């Protein structure tokens, strides 16, 4: 294998690489082994601490918490995509009095940390009389405002990545502005950006975990609840492992979908460095 950094290795380099490879594996297994050793030393793998996860009641609770996480994710995903499209329309508007406020809106909500946004909803609004704000509403609204803003920028980057001729040709055959956007630009932009959009949805899914901090009863909340019950030995590490497994598999599933779409459309995000940067910033 030859790439920008290295030539294809010769026989001596191959031997050296094999030694380095073995050494790497030893070091990594060592670190991993140490963690497992600490777990065993501090009795994290005793039956007492894991027993709770074999009870149908606890398992039901875990399913419930997973559904709560997915509910916040699903609603926030749909709403952010909708808000993203609305903001996009505002952003590309020819009228300054529409596009300027939209620009400010997008920039503001991208710059505020998501957790602060959620806290404004959860702690800030109820004292002002908006008592209907539950943790669920706070989390979903925060996720929507933030990711909607990020997604609108992703959509815009997608439209800007299209050749100018697309819009010009559409106008030339007499399409209206709305038609050009709806029939020509958006479908192509969405296709080009599909992998980036799905990776942004992974961010939404990951960020539902912030709900834990404002007492939304999702997976981490449950982990803390079981993890601090002393009569079953405070199994905080076992419960974190269980919850982590669920979270990571859900995210990997979505990320796998992004990869699948990327391979299918053969348009890697490499062409859309700007959009990738947005996603980096969002995560």
């Amino acid at each position, binding site marked *: *294998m030859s*790439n*920008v*950094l*290295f*030539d294809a290795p010769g026989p001596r*380099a191959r031997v050296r*690489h094999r030694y*380095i*490879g*073995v050494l*790497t*594996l030893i070091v*990594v297994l060592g670190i991993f082994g140490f963690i497992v050793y*600490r*777990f065993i*030393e*501090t009795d*994290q793998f005793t039956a007492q601490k894991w027993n709770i996860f074999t009870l149908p009641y606890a398992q039901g609770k875990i399913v419930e918490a997973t559904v709560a996480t997915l509910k916040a994710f699903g609603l926030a995903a749909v709403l952010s995509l909708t808000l993203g499209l609305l903001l996009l329309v505002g952003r590309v508007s020819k009228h300054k009095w529409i596009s300027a406020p939209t620009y400010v809106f997008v920039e*503001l909500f991208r*710059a*505020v*940390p998501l*957790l*602060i*946004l959620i*806290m*404004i909803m959860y*702690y*800030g609004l109820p*004292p*002002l009389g908006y008592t209907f704000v539950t943790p669920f509403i706070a989390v979903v609204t925060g996720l929507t405002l933030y990711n909607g803003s990020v997604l609108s920028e992703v959509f815009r980057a997608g439209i800007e990545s299209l050749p100018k001729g697309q819009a010009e040709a559409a106008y030339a055959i007499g399409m209206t502005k709305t038609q050009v956007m709806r029939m020509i630009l958006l479908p192509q932009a969405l296709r080009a950006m599909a992998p980036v959009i799905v990776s942004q949805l992974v961010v939404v899914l*990951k*960020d539902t*975990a*912030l709900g*834990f*901090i404002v007492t939304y009863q999702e997976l*981490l909340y449950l*982990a*803390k609840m079981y993890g601090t019950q002393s009569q079953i030995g*405070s199994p*905080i*590490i076992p419960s*974190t492992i269980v*919850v982590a497994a669920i*979270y*990571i598999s859900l*995210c*990997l599933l979505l*990320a796998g979908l992004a990869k699948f779409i990327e391979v299918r459309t053969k348009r890697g995000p*490499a062409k859309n*460095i700007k959009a*990738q*940067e*947005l996603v*980096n*910033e*969002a*995560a």
Partner: protein
Amino acid sequence: MDTLLNNLDVFVDGFALTLQVFLWAALFALILGTIVGAMRVSPVAPMRWVGTGYVNLVRNTPLTLIMFFFAFGYPKLDLPTVSYTTLAIFALGLYTATYVAETLRAGINTVPLGQAEAARAIGLTFGQSMSHILLPQAFRAVIPPMMSVFIALLKNTTVAAGFSVAEAGYIRANLSERGEPAIVVLLWVALIFILLVAVLSFVQRVLENRLKVLR
């Protein structure tokens, strides 16, 4: 305005800790990220596996979950006691390192293969071609996206507030004892973050224009 001025001490302490956490986590992420990034492009297969595995695993884990493990799980392991702040720095560093690694890898991949081949063809050694030809070019491509990673890190420091670190995200909890309205406090915190992000974005734009590679 009164809310800010009357409680300036709390605001200053909070943001001072935020910046401290940010800088240490950035340093840690940069070091670990460079190691992982180098492993991702290494010619040694096991190194690539480890790098890829780490990036895929940690990238798909919520930051809150990582902090949760460090804040609640770590003290159970009978290891040397460290403060919540240090644990938060480790969690943020481990998480951000994956983004640093990916950015570096993407930067190295932007350098055309011909550059390296030409460098080797005129007899430069590995070290020479790295330091004179490849890294300077990769560095330019890496700076703007790297700033985005650090902007995200700055915003992510707030998550530590959920785990007993008294930084900017925690100002609200501190001031609710003094009877300040939460919404006003939080809006001030949000505004200061917007300013901090604006400063970083400005630096990013300046560097981007300075370092633009014309190809």
